[in-house]
């Protein structure tokens, strides 16, 4: 057995894994909406959390703009 067969097998397995990942992601609906996630990732998580005191300060800061 030559090492080429091993290398070929490895490279094919890697390629097929990525291919399967692609199919799975399409099936999941990841390609249905290609815009919203790009906006969603920019939201700051700390503001979403429940921190009333910080929230107030934040708001006052921005309203002075």
């Amino acid at each position, binding site marked *: 057995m*030559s090492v*080429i*067969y091993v290398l*070929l097998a490895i490279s*094919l397995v890697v*390629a097929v894994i990525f*291919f399967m990942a*692609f*199919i799975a992601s*399409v*099936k999941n*609906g990841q*390609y*249905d*909406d*290609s*815009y*919203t996630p790009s*906006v*969603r990732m*920019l*939201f*700051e998580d700390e*503001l*979403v959390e*429940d*921190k*009333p005191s910080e*929230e107030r300060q*934040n*708001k006052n800061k*921005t*309203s002075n703009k």
Partner: protein
Amino acid sequence: MDRINCYHCGDDCGNAAITFDTKNFCCGGCKTVYEIFSTNDLSYYYDLQSAAGTTPKVVENKYDFLGTSAIVQKLTEFSDGNLQIVNLYIPSIHCSSCIWVLENLNKLNLSIISSQVDFPKKTVRISYDSDAISLKELVLLLARIGYEPYISLDDFDNKKKKTDRSLIYKLGVAGFAFGNVMFLSFPEYFDLVTSKSTGGEYWLNQYQDVFRGLMFIFSLPVVFYAGRDYFISAFKGLRSNFLNIDVPIALGILVLFLRSTVEIIFNWGPGFFDSLTGLVFFLLLGKFFQQKTYSFLSFERDYKSYFPVAVTRMLPGGKEESTQVHDLKKGDRILIRNEELIPIDGILISGKARIDYSFVTGESEPVLKQYGEKIYAGGKQLNDAIEIETLKSVSQSYLTQLWSNAVFQEDKSTKFQTLTDSIGKRFTIAVLSVAFAATTFWLFYDSSKALNVFTAVLIIACPCAIALASPFTLGNMLRIFGRKKFYLKNTQTIEQLAQIDTAIFDKTGTITTAQKSTASYQGMTLTLEEEALLKNTLRASNHPLSRTLYNMLAEHDIVTLDEYEEHLGKGVEGRIDGEHIKIGSADFTGYHQDSGALNTSVHINSNDTYKGKYVFHNEYRDGISEVFKAISETLQVAILSGDNEGEKTRLEQLLPKFTPLFFNQKPEDKLDFIKSLQNQGKKVLMVGDGLNDAGALAQSNVGIAISENVNVFSPACDGILDASKFKWLYQYILASKKAIKIVKMSFALSLLYNIIGLYFAVTGQLQPVIAAILMPLSSISIVVFTTVMTNMLGRKLK
């Protein structure tokens, strides 16, 4: 004075700004939304994008039908125990703030488990605990923060639209195989001379069979899955005696595959698997690019997406009940509230009906109906609640019957032969004759090479670049138009638009604006005092005509009237400091020489002498004269209106001379008019806006709907044009013509590549590496050429 803009919605606050929390609001609604957000720690909404909000509308009783569990069952996507998932269409989603606040709905109500926005589709998918919050409460909550969902009969009828992802799968398969086959071909590219069959010794050659076998395996899914559509389409075309562009493509793919397979089996050479997979990949890429969809728009709407899901039915004994529109039977009594749509033909039983039919018939003024009169479906009630006894079922109503016309069942796209297909026919014939001629020559000269030449010609002539020219040019054009707010259904529409020779326009809502109408004064001039009195009297009245007139008149000081009286159906009366004014109908003001004017007018009588009248006109869109002047130079133009002839003289002044004007046209008349033009061989463009144009839009070669707000209802059509861009319509038609020219130029370019390739093929020296270079090179240069050209064209457009 500085303009004060509302902190929530950004509108001008005028004089009556409400100040709250050091911020200004234009109305109580906006203030309430701000309060809801700030008390729930959602004021980040305003940091994301300032003045992002929408003013909420009052929606009492409107969603009562959501209390019926059968309706809820049909509207929800998933319902199990106390978990319900609903997907709502919210037209007012427009910015990142909207996404943020809608995805944080659980801050507002803890019973909402999660929510996810699909921005391009303008939908939000909400999962909630149905024990704690009902769908009705959820919808009301959304409406209260300015995100009122749009629920129509359409949502109710066809629930799950499956998204078609097969093209992405196919593209993935072809791309995957293309990449791998390219890698596996590398030894062959570098080692052309010293392969094993020619006695070479290069160490990679001992694995030649493995590599070729793998290439063969990779090409199988490409030919039989990814390229399947080309075979199907070619077969369909041949069966109906029609040589479309897919015939030479399918032939090319098939010959590539068979020849390559034979070559590797008999060890003659490496085959053309790289070209084969590359070809399919590029073709699919073109298809993918062409398939630009505006997911937030729908080009297939019928009356169902305009009609409500349910109405209030009056039960004997005075009880009210929400009933699905489909369940209404003849003889039912239904209650229609202010601003509600009448879904069914019926007879008015009680209440004062003032119905806006502009969307259905094209009449610009609301119609008054008395007790016992027949009311047609599709109108919108503008006054208080009315009661109607139904005469028919929904599907048999006057308006909905239009949709039983055969036009709506036909698929327009099957009738049209695209430019690519018409080229395809000639191309196929040319390629086949070259192939046979070359084969015949080689049969006599060197018969061992004849089959080689025959297949080589079919392979190299495979019109990959031709097939790509149109998708990339028109696909890019579609995007450019989209950015200019001219949304077309598909690329075929651009081709059709370029061939138009007749343009038919609707009047109401199409060349007139829906929002405002203007009035001109005829009669004796009013004194300043009289005008002030007029304005102040109008101020007290709630009649729509009074409101319009009030907004039009110049500002005067606000004075309290000594006396004010409203005579229902007649007019209003006001008195101040002995001055007396009467405003209203002709009879009421003592005007008796009514010349049968068709335009709505408001008459003025001051101190018992008749003064004059305000005549209301339609307000025409900006630049209408220029648009028609330009269009009529190359196209035939006509106006088809469902309205009466009241505007005839004004239209004649505005439009180029001898423009045919047709009034009082019923929806079927419009459809038949278009049909008769088409029978004369005309290519007709119909521009309309309402349901009454739906038949004409479907019948015409290209039907374009004008819309003031592209998110609200527009009838089924081929394209939607934002009303503000109406004056550029002719430019867009010209641009489509130029786009077609670009496609033709790219055809010439790709033919050049084909001729070069054919030289190698016919002389019997086509090496796989030449095919592997030529095929992508021609495709890529076509893509670059068309993209650059269309972008240059797009830059000139406004």
